[in-house]
């Protein structure tokens, strides 16, 4: 059995996340994202690799979407409505609620403002969302008889989840984007300690270790405050969801504390509608935000007003959130054109802007002039503040997660190639876990866990749970050289309790394999036990046996017998390590090996004719096959044992 992971997107790059995992006959697509940097077919994952015939319903068991960012969900309406996939799609409640806004926002930008050909329509989005099954965190969802999935909190954006999938005995986790440190409005990723064959993790910050976020938040607030205090306008281009709400919480809090009265605006694209969703989904935010819902919902922004197009040129300071992010067109670009020429104003940009956008151009160097298109050039004199907080985990977080889950295999996606290679090396060398970073359209195959199922009898289970104490005396001189001198000669008693389950597995035609305890087998078969034992009457030479015999009237008395055994006991305990010699007076026992003094001259087990019978004392030994090795070892010790009597 194997797990095959076909990476259709975000292989050694950031953009269009899409991994198709096949395990035990089930095929799951994790994320269905688009690449914003391309405007041709490369923006979508190459779906033809899933099924040549285009029959995606039979090729895929289900689709799982981790969060509402376009690079994780952007291609979904296209895949369902244009390519024709109509199977189940799973995402968390917030993702299902917020994804249509995100998709619609994007569609508008593409079509209405950039004048591109429509990839999917509004109706497509609506139809697509109807196929979505919303899941709650930690809820175990049975997709079908064999496949179960479960979402875990990922903290990246509202509703972001890592997904666990299990088919039979094979299990894996796909993280999507996640954040291991809590931020102002979201908590940190949380997952159970699972037994996994595979972990597919994002690696945006594969080599970065980030310090506390609060310093960077303070910087942002300082920059904004400085700008508005100087009468400037602050433009914050964002997408409708996520960053806008996070920064707004930050500003609201700051405004409240500093008693600022300068207006904060939301552009019409960023409707208050989005905040309505956030208010209802407050249980998916951080603990601190969550706790306040009854008295004041943190997403009830008090200082926020709606912005009107006519206000662009209005005098006086203000803060404006405008869509879309990255200044990729639309309203935010329109405002930017008006505000950029004044050095009083400020534009804040996120840590990442897709290549080809104005935002990307602004971030590369300190340009004073920007080419808007072939004919227009724009003077940029305003200040530019780069927001360096991004809700992705850093390298330490990734390593912590991998270490915590200890999967049998790791695949890295959603990162930059050289950095991923470094992280891959660390995971392999530091954690000893094999790791891959496949490129797009590559398949990684790894072996999966499988268990053989059987029914076990109660007796077997109970016997397996019985304590199995082993006592051994060890003189730990060599091991603990630093031990106190007086303790060095004290033999230490070691007690181990290694419980082993020993039983018999029975396979019958047309019946489930069954495990029995040894004692139950004969009962089941209705047979009688035939015990096979070994026997050997072992002579031990005693040099002064005659003397002894004469003194004791040719008969070895009981006490003599015992003393012979005693001698033997001393000898053996010096030479056998590990085995416990039990002294029963009349006989000694080591495991199943039994020794007693033999007085029967015609003992049938005296196989070897001793040359000097008179000089030997015979010990009758019997044992069972399980202690064969031990038995012959003892016998060889006994045969070489020259007994000095008294």
């Amino acid at each position, binding site marked *: 059995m194997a797990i095959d992971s076909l990476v259709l997107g975000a292989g050694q790059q950031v953009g269009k996340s899409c991994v198709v995992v096949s395990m035990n006959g089930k095929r799951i697509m994790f994320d269905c994202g688009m690449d914003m940097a391309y405007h041709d077919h490369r923006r979508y994952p190459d779906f033809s690799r899933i099924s040549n015939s285009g029959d995606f319903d039979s090729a895929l068991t289900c689709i799982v979407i981790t969060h509402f960012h376009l690079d994780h969900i952007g291609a979904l309406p296209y895949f369902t409505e244009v390519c024709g996939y109509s199977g189940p799609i799973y995402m968390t409640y917030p993702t299902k609620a917020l994804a249509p806004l995100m998709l619609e926002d994007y569609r508008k930008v593409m079509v209405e403002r950039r004048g591109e050909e429509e990839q999917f329509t509004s109706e497509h989005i609506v139809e697509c969302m109807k196929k979505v099954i919303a899941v*709650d965190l930690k809820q*175990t969802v049975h997709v079908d008889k064999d496949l179960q999935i479960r979402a875990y909190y990922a903290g990246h954006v509202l509703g972001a989840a890592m997904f666990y999938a299990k088919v039979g005995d094979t299990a894996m986790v796909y993280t999507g984007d996640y954040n291991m440190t809590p931020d102002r409005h979201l908590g940190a990723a949380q997952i159970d300690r699972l037994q996994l064959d595979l972990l597919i993790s994002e690696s945006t910050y594969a080599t970065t270790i980030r310090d506390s976020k609060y310093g960077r938040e303070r910087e942002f607030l300082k920059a904004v405050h400085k700008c508005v205090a100087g009468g400037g306008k602050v433009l914050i281009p964002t997408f409708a969801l996520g960053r806008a709400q996070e920064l707004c919480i930050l500003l609201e809090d700051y405004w409240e504390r500093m008693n600022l009265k300068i207006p904060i605006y939301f552009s019409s694209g960023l409707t208050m509608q989005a905040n309505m969703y956030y208010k209802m989904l407050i249980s998916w935010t951080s603990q601190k935000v969550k706790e306040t819902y009854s008295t004041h919902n943190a997403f009830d922004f008090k200082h926020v007003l709606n912005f009107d197009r006519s206000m662009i040129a209005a005098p006086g300071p203000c803060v404006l959130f405008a869509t879309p992010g990255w200044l990729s067109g639309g309203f935010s670009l329109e405002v930017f054109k008006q505000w950029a020429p004044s050095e009083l104003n400020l534009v804040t940009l996120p840590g990442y802007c897709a290549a080809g956008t104005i935002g990307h151009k602004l971030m590369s160097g300190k340009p004073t002039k920007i080419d808007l298109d072939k004919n227009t050039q724009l003077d940029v004199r305003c200040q530019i503040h780069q927001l360096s907080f991004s809700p992705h985990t850093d390298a330490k977080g990734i390593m912590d997660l991998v270490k915590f889950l200890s999967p049998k295999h790791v695949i890295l996606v959603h990162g930059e190639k050289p950095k991923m290679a470094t992280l891959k090396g660390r995971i392999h060398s530091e954690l000893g876990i094999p790791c891959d970073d496949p490129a797009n359209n590559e398949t990684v195959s790894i072996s999966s866990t499988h268990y053989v199922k*059987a029914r076990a009898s109660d007796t077997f289970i109970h016997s397996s749970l019985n304590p199995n104490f082993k006592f051994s005396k060890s003189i730990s001189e060599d091991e603990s050289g630093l031990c106190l001198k007086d303790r060095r000669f004290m033999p230490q008693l070691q007690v181990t309790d290694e*419980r082993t389950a020993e039983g018999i597995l029975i396979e019958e035609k047309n019946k489930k394999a069954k495990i029995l305890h040894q004692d139950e087998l004969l009962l089941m078969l209705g047979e009688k036990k035939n*015990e096979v*034992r070994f026997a050997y009457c072992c002579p031990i030479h005693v040099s002064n046996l005659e003397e002894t015999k004469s003194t004791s009237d040719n008969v070895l008395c009981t006490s003599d017998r015992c003393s012979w055994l005693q001698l033997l006991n001393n000898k053996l305990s010096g030479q056998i390590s590990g085995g416990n010699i039990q002294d029963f007076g009349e006989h000694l026992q080591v495991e199943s090996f039994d020794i007693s003094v033999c007085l029967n001259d015609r003992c049938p087990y005296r*196989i070897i004719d001793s040359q000097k019978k008179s000089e030997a004392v015979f010990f009758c030994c019997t044992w069972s096959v399980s202690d064969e090795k031990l038995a012959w070892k003892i016998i060889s010790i006994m045969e070489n044992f020259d007994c000095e009597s008294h």
Partner: protein
Amino acid sequence: MKFTCLSRGGGFHFPPCHIVNVCGFRILFDCPMDLSALSIFSPVPTGFDAEVDVKVSDFQDSSSSSSDSVARKRQKVDKPLDVNDLIYAVPWYKTVNNLHLWNVSFIDIVLISSPMGMLGLPFLTRMKGFSAKIYVTEVTARLGQLMMEELVSMHMEFRQFYGPEGSSFPQWMSWEELELLPSSLREVVLGKDGTELGAWVPLYSAADVTDCTQKVQTLRYAEETCYNGTLIIKAFSSGLEIGTCNWTINGPKRDVAFISNSIFLPAHAMKFDYRSLQSNDIVLYSDFSSLDAMENVEDDDGFSIPTTDSMSTLSMDNNNNNWEESVESLLYTDESLEEQEKLSYLCYCAIASLKVGGSVLIPINRLGTLLQLLEQISASLESSTLKVPIYVISSIAEELLAYTNVIPEWLCKERQEKLFSGEPLFSHIELIKNKKLHVFPAVHSPKLLTNWQEPCIVFAPHWSLRLGPVVHFLRRWCGDPNSLLVLESRLDAELALLPFKPMAMKVLQCSFLSGIKLPKVQPLLKILQPKIVLLPEDFKQQTRFTNANSFSVIHYSENASTRIPSLKDSSELEIATNLALQFQWRNLKHENMNVTRLKGELSVYHGKQRLLSGSEQAKSSKIRPLLHWGSPDLEKLLNILSNIGINGSVEQCMGNGESEKACIVHVHEPKKALIEIGTSTIISAGDENLASKIFEAIDKVLEGI
């Protein structure tokens, strides 16, 4: 496995309570309290009522029980109940009597199915030695906590009136006083068999509630949790209220489903997820609602939609392929429509009262009903163009209403659709914003006094009419024939309204669906396909189960233990592949069986038993069989021996007195050795090699493993 029903409870507000022993773990299902018993107490007396003052001093001052008053009271015993018969003291609370017989430290797990089932939990958690793990859904934990906090805050009014309680038993609990109680009240105190005085306890404190909520572990629906590595416990929606649940408990040998009061298609909460209860061997059926509905028919007064369900037997044609479909359609028969009609009628009556200038008082604490009524009444007001304010007055109302709007994951499909289209889940958010609905923590809130307007609609706790703001409103309006009081039909209205007599106010008693209706029990069980079903004994008379059932039914009764027979003599075990690859199979002549020895380490992980290859590496050398059976074929043995160069002679066969044959083979070649053959076999040889060769030969003629 043992099942003990500690209490069959009583209706929606007092769910049943059971203890079950599964796989050696004791599980307590719910820890409710009987708040209907509060009706024996008087509500907080109004300060100006002179007669009451006398009564109070009577009860408070223990020394003043003059023989005169005793005689006076004794006469009352057989008279119709009088307001003075009620107990004037800080109320105590009636818990599940039989639970007190158990040592709490022996309880391993507590499963709470509803907020009502949580109300008695602080009594347990504050007890010394209590260490059980408590599982409860996130929403039930929150709602339960709110309800407990509300109870504590309402109870405060009594404490303020009567002063701090003494440490000893209150006066009313002394046997002298109890004997003077009218028989109907005495029965509430002592129970039918007179043993329940021990069930009464003083209320927990706010600190106890906090402590209790910190001890619970919250779950979401269908979240797996593992107790002690052995039991997998999951909660699934029961549909009764937001966050209420049924349970599945899966151990190595038992798969149990527990069904509490459930509603198939509720109008607010997520629907009854019965599909997830499938494929469990045992169903513990604990929904008494259909039985309660029967009992209630007699004391219907005023308005009530009859809830009697005709006795039914359902014989399904199993040959019919789509029987499951038809069964399911039966489960969804429109009870929600019926509920809808009740609410509409209620709204109609409310509007009628408002129109003639009366006010409407609704002391219904059922969250679902409250939320729906808020929506419907406001809609009715809208359409009737009446401008009448709605008040919700409770210390927790603000938080409760805010909370219901942030838990979309726990609501029914229709409400979830509201989330996806960006509308508030319940319309009360809008109502508050538009100042149509006013929420106040208490009657004496200053804002309420300035805002107050009559006629109006007031939602206020508590349904027992003994605690909380409702008492004040009832006192205000009980003489107004135009005003309307809405009660649940389960409540004993006669007793409940006693302190407010004479009542001119109209009373509307309404019963709401609070469980699975009788005709649906059997189809439901058919879908669940268990092997054993535990049903309350009362079902015996109500349902006849057709013979076609694949399951057996065990009836249980209150306060009796039922042993549930074991269904499996073996448990599931998983063997690691690397261990399985080491197997050395032997074919038995016997019955065409393959057998192998196996050795490993047994681990229990997440409810699964697994056999893993142990730390000690299995030796690659051939493992010798350790157990033999049968009797050897002598000729075959000699043959095999001579083939490997071992020759000998059979010395003699001697009868051992038994029919078993015994003989000795003397081996001469290559060395001297001896084999004793009989019911057991002994090999005696001088060196290891020869002995082992002989053993192999013996192994071939015997069967062994």
